[in-house]
């Protein structure tokens, strides 16, 4: 057992660093520094995606035959670490990480031809239509209806919490096509054009002042049967598949460490009130604890990766432990960063995107309070901490 990079890994890492040095422009770095949210606003996120796409590096997790890079898991990890270190905009959301893999596994050839290319190029931006006002953690109880009428489904109902639906061209949605049997059995996976008649999108503003979430209403929206993925009633299987693959190849370590470095930079800076948080032993102790948490989480990711590389499938428990750990660490970093700003933590910039500060350090300081507010969602979305504990408990108490 060892933690060594090979010579080839080091060469690759340096190649990536050199590329990022040139391609990740100062204004893209600044836009990301000023973003309190997890995902970049598509206004600049798509710009970065396109630059990576030119290099063929937009979707390292995709199979090479569909436009991925064909890299080993270790290379993908190294690439992610370097991109995070450089401060890249986080643009890989529902399009690249969810609907892309679903189409590759369950889509017809014509669906793949039609949609995959447009995801990579950024011509389509996809929103996720899963949660409903009455169906969050209990997703299977969803009730948004789809009724077959000739060669189309007619969709009525509402989806909520769809990130960037207000920018999106398409939405993939789980809809109820039947009421027979168990609630999971009557669910179908549809691709909905958000520009179709009957679609209304209402913004939801978050407690950190950002508009990223939306509620979408479907009023007799027609969806061609050709835009159904998989068979009628196969929607839940597809949703479970997505959960499985998410476990295998997603890394959070690079992103967490990038946030941690910013925390340290804030702590080392002397604030306008003359104080330097790193001089306070209580703060140093707390930063040290977060750092040991981060090292352990990094290690768990590497252990998962090592297992996956030798063909093991990461268990449900390990995946849930990682999710719980990463959201706790993210929240701890954001909370501490905002609390060591002194009186400055009360200054509020309501503009979105935020007005740039006087330099990189100032950007990091001024976004910290909003980033802290935003971080409260980390333990809720993508499978709440309570659901992760349910999953772990079920495996433990079997």
């Amino acid at each position, binding site marked *: 057992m060892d933690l060594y990079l090979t010579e080839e890994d080091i060469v690759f890492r340096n190649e990536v660093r050199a590329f990022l040095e040139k391609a990740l422009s100062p204004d893209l770095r600044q836009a990301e520094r000023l973003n309190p949210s997890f995902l970049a606003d598509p206004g600049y996120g798509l710009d970065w995606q396109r630059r990576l796409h030119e290099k063929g590096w937009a979707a390292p997790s995709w199979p090479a035959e569909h436009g991925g890079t064909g890299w080993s898991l270790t290379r993908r990890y190294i690439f992610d670490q370097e991109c995070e270190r450089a401060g890249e905009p986080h643009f890989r959301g529902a399009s690249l990480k969810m609907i892309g893999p679903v189409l590759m596994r369950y889509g017809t050839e014509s669906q793949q031809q039609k949609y995959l290319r447009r995801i990579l190029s950024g011509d389509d931006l996809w929103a996720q239509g899963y949660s409903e006002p009455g169906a969050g953690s209990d997703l299977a109880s969803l009730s948004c209806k789809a009724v077959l009428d000739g060669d189309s489904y007619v969709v009525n109902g509402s989806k909520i919490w769809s990130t960037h639906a207000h920018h999106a061209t398409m939405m993939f949605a789980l809809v109820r096509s039947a009421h027979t049997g168990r609630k999971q059995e009557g669910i179908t996976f549809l691709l909905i054009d958000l520009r179709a008649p009957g679609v209304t999108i209402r913004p939801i503003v978050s407690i950190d002042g950002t508009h990223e979430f939306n509620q979408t209403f479907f009023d007799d929206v027609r969806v061609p049967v050709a835009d159904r993925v998989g068979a009628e009633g196969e929607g839940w299987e597809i949703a479970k598949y997505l959960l499985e693959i998410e476990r295998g190849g997603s890394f959070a370590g690079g992103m967490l460490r990038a946030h941690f470095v910013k925390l340290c930079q804030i702590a080392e800076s002397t604030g306008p009130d003359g104080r330097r948080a790193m001089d306070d032993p209580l703060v140093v102790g707390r930063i040290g604890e977060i750092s*040991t948490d981060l*090292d352990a989480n990094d290690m768990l990711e590497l252990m998962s990766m090592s297992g996956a590389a030798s063909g093991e499938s990461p268990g449900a428990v390990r995946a849930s432990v990682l999710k719980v750990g990463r959201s706790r660490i993210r929240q701890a970093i954001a909370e501490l960063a905002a609390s060591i700003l002194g009186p400055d933590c009360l200054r509020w910039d309501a503009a979105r995107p935020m007005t740039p500060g006087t330099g990189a350090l100032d950007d990091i300081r001024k976004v910290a309070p909003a980033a802290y507010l935003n971080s409260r969602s980390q333990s809720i979305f993508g499978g709440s901490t309570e659901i992760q504990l349910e999953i772990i408990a079920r495996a433990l108490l079997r």
Partner: protein
Amino acid sequence: MNLNLSEEQVMLRESAGRFLAATHDAGQSRDRIPRGAGLDRAMWARYADLGWLGLPFAEEEGGIGGGPADIAILTEQMGAAAVAEPYVDIVVLAGGLIAALGDAGQRAAFLAPLIAGKLVPVLAHLEDGAKGRIDHVITQAVPAGDGWALSGRKILVPAGMEADVLLVSARLGDDIGLFALPTEAAGITRSGVPTLDGGIAADIALDGAIATTLLAPDALGTIEAVIDLAISAACADAVGVMDALLAATVKHCKGRVQFGKPLSEFQALQHRMADMAVKCEEARASALLAALSAGATPALRIRGVSGAKARIGRIARHVAHEAIQLHGAVGFSEEMPLGTWFRRLYAFEHRYGSTSDHLQRYAHVALTPTLRDAGLLREPGAV
């Protein structure tokens, strides 16, 4: 980068687990060693037969050539079984110092009989007033004849009453030297100290005791490094204990029926056990990082080892508390092994430096711009 166990490591883990399950009952282990003795020599001889006493040492010395990760595999099983013999102090720490510092003659005199189970050396380093500093050594070494006269006081020496040889750190000029002092030498007064985890340590007064063996005149750096190796082994032991506490808690909650159903069907308790499982997984990762850092260059070694000691110290305590709590009243009685495991984790937290000592040591190194920016993957030969 490879973090999968090799076949040999899997075999070591399984055979050690089987042997210890057959010979140790966690709750009874402290009774095998009546207070007044510090080592079960019969059990120690069985460890020698299994090759465990030679695990960390080179094959040329009669050992097995195992590394920190292999030691950790063994000590994790020892933790779960609440093994009372101070394997880490005798084999990993004292043995490790002899292997690292001794010349051929000294290794033949001390290491070979250790591996054979015939000689018990221990490190006598800690002194009152240390305040967490590893270089706090007041004990003096003064040249005397063909040896050195050692004078000073060492506290809480593990297995100090049972040991045949003390490895004593003492001031030699401006440096800290390490001496091998047989316990039958004159000028040594040992007082037995029962420790909370059921063992017997010793407070030792040295009054001009003559040591003729100097392992190294400037030993501090090596003492620090080998203590780090011992800590990594102790971290794995703690992980074994945490797993055992969780397993016992799950078993108890599934069997205990109150208000018409097993405790394991109450969601609040399910979530608390799930949280214990999260901490066990995280501790396992920390301990592995420690094992893979024990042989690295100082900055990386301190990051991995002190980071793990600090972190596991903190979360192990939470798991221990929860285990007792979820057992209810029976968790508090000495009839169950819970108390043994609980006290073992408490001792872990406070041996080789406290949680907060190690958090400080970690922060000093890990929060520097170079290290905090760097993930865990290393270039070969990284500093």
